[in-house]
């Protein structure tokens, strides 16, 4: 079955990102296809590679990146929400004249249409948030 996942909260403050990750991993291990994980609202903060949690804590950002690598998972960060919150890839930083970029490996920035499309193409869409 094709499943889409929507993550609406950032890492660490809320459990939403943990739940989404554990759900996504379990679905993949059961042989389901994850059509896309879409990060919206503060959920875009799951994609900054500048995250550096203490060594004895989980690294939520890296965990997503690794899962993406292992399963060629499509991790999409909403551009409008990302711009509000200072998440940028190299191209966007250049376009906006910013001196840095911070998008982690495995994530890509794209439009909100990707969320609607995930709803159309997936058999189920599951939302995680606050």
């Amino acid at each position: 079955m094709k499943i889409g996942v929507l993550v609406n909260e950032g890492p660490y403050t809320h459990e939403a990102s943990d739940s989404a990750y554990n759900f996504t991993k379990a679905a993949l291990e059961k042989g389901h296809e994850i059509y896309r994980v879409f990060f919206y609202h503060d959920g875009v903060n799951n994609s900054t590679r500048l995250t550096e949690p203490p060594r004895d804590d989980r690294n939520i950002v890296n965990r997503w990146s690794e899962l993406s690598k292992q399963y060629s998972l499509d991790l999409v960060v909403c551009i409008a929400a990302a711009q509000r919150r200072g998440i940028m890839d190299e191209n966007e930083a250049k376009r906006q004249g910013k001196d840095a970029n911070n998008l982690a490996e495995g994530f890509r920035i794209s439009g909100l249409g990707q969320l609607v499309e995930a709803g159309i193409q997936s058999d189920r869409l599951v939302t995680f948030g606050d």
Partner: protein
Amino acid sequence: MLHIVNKSPYERNSLESCLRMASKGSAVLLIEDGVYGATKGGSFEGKIQAAMADVKVYVLGPDLSARGMADRVLDGVSVVDYGGFVDLVAEHSNCQSWL
């Protein structure tokens, strides 16, 4: 239909709204702080028990254990792991998260 609730009923009205709107035969899965809604001895116990006449109630085991509530689950509530969560999503035609 699968309803997912992640808020403690003692903090927010998500579970109450969900139960108000869940039609007969649907399923309710409690995750994150929502798991407190399915535990014994609290003032919400009666409401969950009444709801269970019409809807099936599930609770996410890992969230329950993390909160030290694994031994307090109400009778009739089924405990599932993340794999079981995935199965519930697959079994029901759609799902709504009461954020």
